[in-house]
């Protein structure tokens, strides 16, 4: 059956509960079954996807928004959001002059080339970007190796067997409130498949895959490294992304089969709201990976944006001898709130996990580390090492650590270390007295503090992330 026929068949089942027609690009506010069907139809989903979305939606209706995180916000009205808008056509800026000067300033400080600035800001540049040709070259090179790197929408159509097998296999739609919501209404995201024994020769990044850069609110990413494969994946970019959407709920699933390795790096710099805590993105993300035997999954994240971050990239260490890592720098300033950490679930024997979390709080912000280390009965000789550090800038912010341990095997070794330091006026003055300006002092201290995590990032990314940390903290002490 060709895709068109499938589509025609399912299209017959749609009941359009609203007066808008299928050609429209933006739905009215609100979420109901018809909205889910509309999105599915817009995406040309095969039946299995539509069914999955609907199941997810029905399940979502039975769930309550989680309340356990150390974050506070006015209630979110899920009927007040728009769940489908075609890639930002009407939001496009005509030129960079229309952009928020603060964001523009940051672009300039980061030294981002003009075309890239336009791209990030959503200015209509379309074909002028050099990267377009870069993308094509990359694609050809990758497909020679059998690597699939495309949007998830494309994958659903072109590689339904892989999607069917793995989508929701690590983060089922029933996992949590936001995962259920995402499963019902996700509009796009990335898909990666690395075949057996193939080492992906370059860093894969959403940044290069231009057509999926504006996927917005409900992004869905699925990465599969087949046996013995290796891939390093970069999400996001270091410049602030202009985005009008308040609510973000992404899901990322990683599957590392036996002897495979996945490195996943994120630099998240969504709009954090203004100095008084007005505006900003609510970022509720579910990220999880599963390891086969001798497999390794490593999460690295630098989180500086969003007014609320709720995010726990986790690893299920199912296979014997598998390794899970979590390296995180979470920076909050002004009135930002972050509740982030990880879960390391040891199931296989001789499994190892390493957690390095560096929280940086400034202004009136609240920054929480929340982490779970679980060692199952059968996980003989499991080892975990956790290091959770907090750095406070000034004395109006808060840092909190919530480590949870659930150890069911006597042979497990679990180590946890935590430190708190404060950068106050005294340290800034000490640096000033040595000729180092406040800005440089903060950069010096923060980069030293975050080094272990930044070192995990690819080189150019690390340099930008370093600058980003400094910029995000400007004027935060004294």
């Amino acid at each position: 059956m060709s895709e068109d026929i499938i589509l025609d068949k399912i299209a017959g089942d749609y009941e359009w509960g609203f007066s808008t027609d299928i050609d429209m690009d933006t739905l009215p506010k609100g979420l109901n079954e018809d909205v889910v069907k509309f999105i599915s139809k817009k995406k040309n989903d095969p039946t299995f996807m539509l069914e999955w979305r609907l199941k997810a939606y029905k399940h979502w209706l039975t769930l309550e928004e989680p309340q356990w995180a150390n974050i506070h916000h006015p209630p979110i009205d899920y009927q007040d959001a728009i769940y489908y808008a075609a890639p930002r056509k009407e939001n496009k800026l005509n030129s960079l002059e229309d952009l928020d000067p603060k964001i523009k300033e940051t672009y300039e400080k980061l030294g981002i080339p003009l075309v890239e600035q336009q791209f990030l800001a959503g200015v209509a540049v379309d074909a002028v970007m050099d990267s377009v040709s870069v993308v094509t070259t990359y694609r050809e090179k990758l497909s020679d190796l059998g690597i699939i790197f495309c949007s998830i929408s494309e994958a659903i159509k072109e590689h339904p067997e892989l999607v069917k097998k793995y989508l929701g296999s690590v983060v089922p739609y029933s996992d949590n409130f936001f995962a259920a919501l995402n499963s019902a209404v996700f509009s796009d995201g990335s898909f990666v498949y690395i075949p057996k024994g193939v080492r992906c020769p370059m860093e894969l990044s959403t940044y290069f895959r231009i057509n999926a850069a504006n996927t917005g609110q409900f992004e869905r990413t699925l990465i599969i490294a087949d046996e013995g494969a290796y891939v390093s994946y970069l999400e996001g970019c270091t410049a602030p992304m202009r985005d009008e959407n308040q609510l973000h709920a992404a899901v990322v699933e990683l599957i590392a089969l036996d002897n495979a390795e996945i490195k996943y790096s994120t630099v998240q710099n969504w709009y954090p709201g203004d100095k008084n805590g007005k505006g900003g993105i609510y970022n509720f993300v579910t990220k999880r990976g599963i390891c086969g035997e001798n497999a390794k999954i490593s999460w690295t994240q630098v989180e500086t944006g969003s007014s609320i971050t709720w995010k726990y990239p986790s690893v299920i260490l199912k296979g014997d001898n598998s390794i899970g890592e979590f390296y995180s720098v979470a920076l909050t300033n002004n009135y930002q709130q972050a509740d982030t950490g990880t879960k390391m679930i040891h199931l296989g024997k001789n499994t190892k996990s390493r957690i390095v979390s560096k929280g940086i709080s400034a202004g009136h912000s609240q920054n929480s580390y929340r982490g779970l280390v679980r060692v199952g009965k059968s996980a003989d000789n499991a080892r975990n090492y956790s290091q959770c550090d907090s750095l406070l800038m000034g004395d109006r912010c808060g840092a909190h650590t919530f480590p949870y341990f659930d150890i069911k095997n006597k042979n497990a070794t679990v180590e946890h270390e935590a430190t708190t330091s404060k950068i106050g006026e005294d340290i800034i003055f000490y640096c000033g007295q040595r000729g180092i300006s406040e800005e440089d002092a903060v950069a010096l201290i923060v980069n030293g503090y975050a080094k272990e995590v930044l070192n995990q990032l690819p080189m150019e990314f690390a340099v930008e992330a370093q600058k980003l940390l400094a910029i995000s903290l400007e004027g935060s002490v004294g």
Partner: protein
Amino acid sequence: MLSIKNLKAKIDNKEILKGINLEVKPGEVHAIMGPNGSGKSTLASVLTGREGYEVTGGEITYDGKNLLELSAEDRARAGIFLAFQYPVEIPGVSTTNFMKTAINEIRKSKGIAPMSAGEFLKRLKDKAALVELDVEMTKRYVNVGFSGGEKKRNEIFQMAMLEPRLGILDETDSGLDIDALRIVANGVNKLRNENNAFVVITHYQRLLDYIVPDFVHVLYKGKIVKSGGKELAYQLEEEGYDWIKEEQTVK
């Protein structure tokens, strides 16, 4: 090169400095003594531009410039160095990296290119030797986990690295054992030349046996109430401050 005229300063609306006068010329060493709480550290803070102090009167000129108009870092870049009475700890930053940053920031402010790695390393070794500091210590985070005496020695090491024109030592001798005292004092003496000057705040005449001052001043209740040569330090050591306090009440 430093001229303080009738300087008055407040903190938290409380007047601490009540009219200080002091002239420091290149090549000189001035010792400032005085009872606890008389305003010695406050004077050092005001000289180096720490925030929170309100200058309510008088003036400070340094190399003919109005010092009070400069930020803390600009004063440092102009060659003013303070060895802190209570050095702070800086987590995550090694002393080596800290000094490299400081030297290059100072150079940058003067339009000089960053120091080469080789030159920096040489200076690091030379100056560590000067204050008999184990080079390994410079790899550790600034003052983190250092003993009280080690912190003081690290201050003098930093001073040697930055080669200031005006070095202010705030009770650097407190907490040092006899050997360390001698080493630190020797370090200062080796740095002394006709172009630079030192203001040494201390409670103990002992330090002044090693760093011989040209002038000794007594700061009392926010004013310099007595100045003299090094023999004044001996007198204070023998007789304490009572006679000075009495003189003041008589006035």
